[in-house]
């Protein structure tokens, strides 16, 4: 691995200061995406800023109608949290399906959302649970956050600090794992709120997205029958060595049927 300067900070201000004065800096949380990219030299920062000692970014709070998860919470912490397992079953289940136990011990929610991998699991939860993403200087609505493949709305001197997830009446995440990498070949998140239904898909396209037309249909009639008649539009779906767009479209349909069947 080529060389960089390592910084360890214990508060957000120091991290932002180094971020805005270094030539080509990178934030480091769990490192389970960044370190593999450093090894492959896909990223060659001058400065790596390890924020994992910032104790203010490590808790999960239940605020009645939403759960706030700080950026440094690990996938295993989210999967086991009493607040998440009781209030947002789909989110806890999603976190427990990321990678393997050792990856979940180090990988963080902030790192995953900042990275915006098209096959990552969290983006589906962010969209379906109408989350708000809070950073060191701003906050974003879920629908404005994922911009493109590996690209989010945040600026290069911003640090994600926490994510607010709305508490739904019911929620579920269904995923078809890539057998080699564990990432989603397709993943579907369905959340039922008092005022509507949200359906988000990950793994199928260049970024996670919602199925607005299906949401409306399910709001009128929440049943598997609706899905039987539903045509998945695969125009913008990925075709790669793992699966064709058509195959991914079929996965999405099957996963949605399973998800709805379990929620009714």
């Amino acid at each position, binding site marked *: 691995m080529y060389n960089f300067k390592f910084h360890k900070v214990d508060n957000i201000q120091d991290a932002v200061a180094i971020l805005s004065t270094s030539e080509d800096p990178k934030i480091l949380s769990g490192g389970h995406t960044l370190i593999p990219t450093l090894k492959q030299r896909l990223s060659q920062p001058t400065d790596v800023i390890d924020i994992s000692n910032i104790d203010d970014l490590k808790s999960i709070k239940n605020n009645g109608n939403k759960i706030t998860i700080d950026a440094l919470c690990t996938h295993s912490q989210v999967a086991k949290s009493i607040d998440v397992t009781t209030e947002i079953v789909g989110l806890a289940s999603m976190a427990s399906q990321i990678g393997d136990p050792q990856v979940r011990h*180090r990988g963080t929610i902030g790192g995953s959302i900042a990275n915006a991998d098209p096959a990552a699991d969290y983006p589906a939860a962010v969209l379906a649970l109408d989350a708000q993403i809070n950073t060191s200087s701003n906050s974003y609505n879920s629908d404005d956050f994922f911009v493109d493949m590996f690209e989010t709305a945040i600026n290069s001197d911003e640090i994600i600090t926490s994510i607010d997830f709305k508490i739904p009446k019911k929620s579920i995440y269904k995923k078809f794992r890539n057998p080699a990498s564990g990432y989603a070949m397709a993943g579907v998140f369905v959340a039922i709120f008092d005022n509507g239904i949200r359906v988000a898909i990950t793994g199928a396209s260049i970024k996670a997205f919602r199925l607005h037309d299906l949401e409306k249909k399910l709001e009128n009639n929440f049943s598997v029958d609706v899905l039987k008649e539903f045509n998945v539009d695969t125009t913008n779906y990925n075709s790669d060595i793992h699966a064709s767009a058509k195959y991914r479209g079929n996965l999405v349909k099957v996963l949605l049927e399973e998800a709805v069947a379990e929620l009714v």
Partner: protein
Amino acid sequence: MAKIDIKINGKGYSETIDDNILLVDFLREKIGLTGTHVGCDTSQCGACVVHVDGDSVKSCTTLAMQVNGKDITTIEGLSEGDNLHPIQKAFQNNHALQCGFCTPGLVMSAVDLLQKNKNPSEDEIREWFEGHICRCTGYKNIIKAVQEAIA
């Protein structure tokens, strides 16, 4: 260069290291603890698993400086002299290794599983080993070893 103060298998170390050295290379090359292996270097195989403050993690995907100040346990820290740890004994009893390359990581992972879940089902054991690859045993005897260690 950066300064690291770290506890490994109960012993304190203070060293000056490269900013970019991986935890696994630090353990093997600087400290001389070569029981922790590198099988893939791409976070897939689990041969490099050690404990950081009690949790099993992949040391090929962790910078040494990330765990500055923490408490590390490697495979060398499990036995007491010639007395093997119960999981090591169970692996030996059940022929849960052939070449042994993957074994240190699997043992460290199994120890972590049993400290978090005293009585895992076969499915839970198999799921826990998701991040490990063994090219020799076919896994059956590894599962049997963990089951013997529970009993």
